[in-house]
């Protein structure tokens, strides 16, 4: 089963919509609650990142027996130093994003914590693709 969502950069009132839909679907499939929480927290962090930093993005969710793969692709400024961005506390978020309760520089590290596999590819000035795999 595959799902696809579009994300609008800067639109915080829609941020989390895709993650919410994925959570509902995983619940319907009867997947373990703790596993669902890990998957959707990582996805939500990624979704918020796109809203906070990029112009637009797309989420692809691929469900297989005992495995879920989520890909978040955005068009945006990209990440110059991925290793640095993975460090807790490092952030380039705007004041507006921080005022929403995000931008503390913990998102990517939290995504890593909540996934079994995480890969990030980014080109400065073009965008970022994050791929996450969870097994259950």
């Amino acid at each position, binding site marked *: 089963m595959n799902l696809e969502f579009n994300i609008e950069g800067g639109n*915080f*009132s829609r*941020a*989390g919509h895709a*993650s*919410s839909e994925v*959570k509902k679907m995983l619940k319907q499939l009867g997947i373990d*609650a703790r596993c669902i*929480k890990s998957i*959707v*927290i990582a996805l*939500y*962090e990624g979704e*918020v990142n796109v809203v906070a930093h990029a112009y637009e993005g797309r989420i692809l969710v691929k469900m297989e027996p005992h495995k879920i793969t989520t890909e978040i692709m955005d068009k945006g400024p990209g990440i110059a130093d991925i290793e640095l961005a993975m460090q807790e506390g490092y952030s380039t978020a705007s004041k507006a994003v921080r005022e*929403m*309760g*995000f*931008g*503390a*520089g*913990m*998102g990517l590290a*939290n995504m890593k*914590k909540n996934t079994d596999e995480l890969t990030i590819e980014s080109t400065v000035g073009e965008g970022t693709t994050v791929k996450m795999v969870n097994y259950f």
Partner: protein
Amino acid sequence: MQVSKICQFLDARIICGEEHASANIERGYSSDLMSDVLTLDTDHLLLITGMCNLQTIRTSEMADIRFIVFVRNKKVTDEMLALAKENNLCLLESPFTLFKASGILYQAGLKPVY
């Protein structure tokens, strides 16, 4: 600690989820930073926050947090209310500061997450 007791302690009122008034909550977490809330491994806790926007509701939905008390007299918007109801959340509003609300609940026996 029962939700109804929390209302008494914090001079709070239930904005939605009145049916949960007798529910028991074991732990609380105070933060205005949703990034921190998303790192918690504990769920079904009481979130005490002054961050009053739609993303507080979304964060709670993702983190399996069903009880939120908004402090500092922050008012829940209609948009937040609709999303909270959709996710069966229980929202409270209190006039107290984050510090005062947290102190009272801690003293009354609500446990910290860590």
